[in-house]
């Protein structure tokens, strides 16, 4: 997965700024996406291109259980979020519906990757390559269940291993 990074160098980006409550009545995902990150960054849609990534700090996606949050980001073109940590429900929502990949990074990656950098994420080797700066970082591997749900393509396609 190759794309460019839009960086929000802050912690606690919550689901209310990802997609405000007033839009939870919107069922058309394309329309929902037009309101993604509306409160936080009015220029979000001019920065994000299909296949890009968001980089942020700790506790990304805290707050509401609204699956609209990963849906709105996904339909804006975001393929993965790289963050120092994630709130649990957002994390699970992201992979359950196969909307985007939540990737936990370490401080080196967080500090090393800048806005606009082109990176390549390889979840088979758990490596993130910064093509702009020619650096490589480790990502935290997915746990077994999350890896299997991602490999299956979502919660409803996941089947447990047979004995």
């Amino acid at each position, binding site marked *: 997965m190759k794309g460019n990074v839009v960086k929000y160098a802050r912690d606690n980006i919550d689901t209310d700024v990802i997609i405000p409550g007033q839009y*939870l009545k919107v069922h058309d995902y394309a329309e929902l996406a037009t309101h993604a990150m509306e409160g936080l960054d009015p220029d979000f849609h001019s920065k994000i291109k299909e296949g890009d990534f968001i980089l942020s700090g700790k506790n990304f996606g805290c707050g509401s259980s609204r699956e609209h949050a990963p849906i709105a980001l996904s339909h804006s073109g975001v393929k993965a979020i790289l963050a120092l940590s994630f709130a649990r429900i957002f994390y699970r929502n992201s992979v359950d519906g196969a909307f985007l990949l939540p990737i936990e990074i370490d401080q080196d990656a967080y500090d090393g990757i800048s806005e606009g950098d082109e990176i390549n994420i390889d979840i088979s080797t758990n490596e993130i390559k910064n093509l702009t700066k020619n650096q490589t970082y480790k990502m935290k591997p997915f746990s077994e269940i999350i890896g299997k749900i991602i490999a299956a393509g979502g919660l409803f396609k996941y089947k447990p291993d047979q004995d």
Partner: protein
Amino acid sequence: MGKTLFEKIWESHIVVEKQNEPALIYIDRHLVHEVTSPQAFDGLRMNDREVRRPDLTIATMDHNVPTSDRSLPILDQTSAVQIKTLENNCKDFGIKLFDINSPNQGIVHVIGPQLGITLPGTTIVCGDSHTSTHGAFGALALGIGTSEVEHVLASQTLWLEKPKTFEVRVEGKRKNPHAVTAKDIILSIIKNIGTAGGTGTVIEYRGEGITDLSMEQRMTICNMSIEGGARAGLIAPDQKTFDYLRNREYTPQNYDSLVDNWKVNLQTDSDATFDKTFVLDINDIAPQVSWGTNPGMTCDVNESIPSPDEFSNGDANQKKGAEKALEYMALESGTLIEDIEIDRVFIGSCTNARLEDLIEASKVIQGQKVASNVSAMVVPGSQMVKKQAEEMGLHKIFIDANFEWREAGCSMCLGMNPDILSPGERCASTSNRNFEGRQGNGGRTHLVSPVMAAAAAINGHFVDVRKLDLN
């Protein structure tokens, strides 16, 4: 080795669990509301699936229902569609619905306990992060997303990674329990552990400071577990729990034998260990007021707003977060909390809109008027809370003081219905989240207890309710 309460509930609900694999967990109760369910029902239809246990599934409408006159049609067409969709889905799939005209309608986390649907030792899920509220009864209650809602509708189970255990021990006694409330205890906990302090854990709240609380106060504590990042919050059931749930509309027939069983099986063993522990001494805690844009940005009512340096302890992102929060909130470091003037007051939400909350708030305002520059509203957590409050005459106290007295719903907690702040308005709110734009685009939220909100309404600014006679 002994087991924690969480481990006991978890183990008794495992359908499948293998070494190094997630567990398939059985769900005893599934609560459904209009916002996070439509796509789940669509998914069932697309795949030709039924609801596996409609008898264990209960729905209500709370997030975007109007709280004004219910005899009028709903003006917001997208809300009307979402409400109608839930009605149709419940009809099609045979699910019990407490609709907008039901005397049992209300915020899903208020009606579950008051109807006796929430029971100790059970697993409860809902497509809402504040499902943690039900943990006050010793239930393992998890907020889930819409894909998981569909999974539970279809199978009555969930694939879950086993959370870690987190003991939060609350010790001591509050000197003035009418002024320093459960809300102040949980805000103090979050201020200390941080908004991600509980990530990946189930918190069990223990100690004298917790067992002293009423059931409604315990719900306020467990409700905000998610604000500390936890998957769920738990309090072991005791006699208060058993008494609260007796003789409710859905209390099971064999209640006494269930209680006997709960008394034996729903306690953390004395030799059990937790993955981590935090201890809060509440002997000297003060009423809390949030000054920033997450629930960890809180200080004592008699303090002044900290500087970003003081708040961040050297963490660059925390400092930046505090700077941005102060800018959004239009506040400056060093300002005394009591000098902050407010425009709006909201007493409501699944955190603080139960009967006790309204009783306590009414004591503050009895015989007084809301400050002339403030508009204030009370939104009871359920139609049943509203009815009980009216039977006690509380509505008269609020209305005489110039509060609006509304119908039940989530209302201004999350700004999905017409109850929202205008840009720049500052609100003393008994809700759970002070995120940017949460109560309306550009709105500024200060999280407080019901008594603190009521006192702010009367005075037009925050006041230390410990100075008031609240007995």
